[in-house]
């Protein structure tokens, strides 16, 4: 199992670490029993992500996917942000080992949860369509073979 240089760069020099004190929306996903937890806080202006920070407890891939998703989401509209897929996150990092694909789910889920939190707080309907981790049938390690091969890089 090898990480790409880009994964290692985001792991060793994570971008946008921290918490926004005056956050408009906060998403917290994961479970310490599974070894990974992520918290994303966002500032929203005109339905775009104006600022974003993350905190993550987890492995190299969990930290790297958290870091890159904050870079990807910045300046995006809320609709664009919740549409980011785990595959886009993995591709942006030059691929993830198959066993680590679920880490990118953590990152996209954290972002979705933060966006929905902002919307609900402002009396609007959530738009993410639910979190992958909340799906009882979600198996973080059941990676389709083709996808595993694609992302292995």
């Amino acid at each position: 199992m090898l990480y790409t240089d880009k994964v290692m760069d985001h792991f060793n020099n994570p971008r946008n670490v921290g918490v926004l004190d005056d956050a408009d929306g906060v998403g917290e996903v994961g479970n310490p029993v599974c070894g990974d937890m992520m918290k994303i806080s966002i500032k929203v202006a005109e339905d775009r992500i104006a600022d974003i920070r993350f905190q993550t407890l987890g492995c190299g891939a969990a930290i790297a996917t958290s870091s890159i998703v904050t870079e990807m989401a910045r300046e995006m509209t809320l609709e664009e942000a919740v549409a980011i897929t785990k595959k886009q996150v993995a591709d942006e990092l030059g691929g993830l080992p198959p066993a680590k694909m679920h880490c990118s789910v953590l990152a996209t889920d954290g972002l979705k949860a933060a966006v929905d939190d902002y919307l609900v707080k402002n009396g609007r309907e959530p738009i993410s369509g639910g979190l992958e981790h909340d799906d009882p049938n979600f198996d973080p390690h059941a990676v389709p073979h083709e996808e595993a091969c694609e992302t292995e890089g």
Partner: protein
Amino acid sequence: MEQERDTYLDYAATTPVDPRVIDAMLPSLRDVWGNPNSLYRRGREAYTALEEARERFARVIGAEHPGEIIFTAGGTEADNLALLGIPLRSRPDGGHVIVSAFEHHAVLEPAHELEKRGFDVTYLKPRPEGYIDPEDVRAALRDDTVLVSVMHGNNEIGTVQPIAEIAAAAHERGAYMHTDAAQTLGKIPFDVTALGVDAATFSGHKIYAPKGIGALYLKRRTPLAPLIRGGGQESKRRSGTQDVAGAIAFATAAELVTADLDTEAPRLAALRDRLIDGITSALENTEVSATHHERLPNIAHLIIKGVEGEAMLLQLDAKGIAISTGSACSSGSLEPSHVLLSIGCPPELAHGSIRVSVGRYTTEDDIEYFLEVFPPIVKRLRDMSPVYEKMFGSHAG
């Protein structure tokens, strides 16, 4: 500067080959290349070299007879040979086997295979202190128990099991006793006869010999079905032309690790203790595993609360330090180490486990370097965690 550091602290995973071992095996690679099973001069030379190595290895481990040593391609093969070979020959129609729940996968997987072949297998839970209680073995033994397998030294937490007592309990009920001694030879005094086992596994690359050589000690008159069939080498117990150079390397390495045991074991224990003291005094919310039981001198196992193991491993690697972790993320599975779960360690803590293991070339300077580098790494990762403050209090280590 830092990238150039090469601080290897994972001797329980593998060891570099000792230059003296290389010197001992090179002549046979170059000159003694005959097939030890051939009758002409070159064959006889190879045969003599192989049998000398067998005698030397037998002497080191306290075997009564060189014929009790079966050379294999490593510890995993030796474990498989014992776990499958003894029950399948003794009770081809099935019976009962006891293994400890925190064995190496090289024992657990053959045990699963035995279940598929109609055997009952008891996976005996260790006590929370990290050892198998002989009384628990006694309680699990049945009239149809054919084999008990309990590792001598645990490869993650380093606890030493009371093998002599367990073997006595097994023998009282007519069962054979196997122990995986891959982690113990050269770390603590070792003698198969004193332990009273019928079979024991050894691995070359854990004791400064190359990968690809190991051995199963099999006491005379212990039944064994071969796994690898062919030309009938190793007295029909393990076919395949023998690795003469590997056997010489293995015997030499075994002699070297036992020759300086009296001075090396206390030296390693002192390095381990300095490491543990350094970590626990620099960082809050750390726990040393299995301190209430006899441990191998070379393994320090710690739980660093609120940090994930792979993240620590990678950050240390960036500083030129090599260690292991029992976190799920490093294993490629969802579950953290089965060893830690078996002793009742909660998963959220097992994810933060690290194993630091020292060896022949570890210096005090290596330990001081580790202690300089490690605490800031942990602090940085804890600062990055969304739950550390919440879970472990406000004055984070």
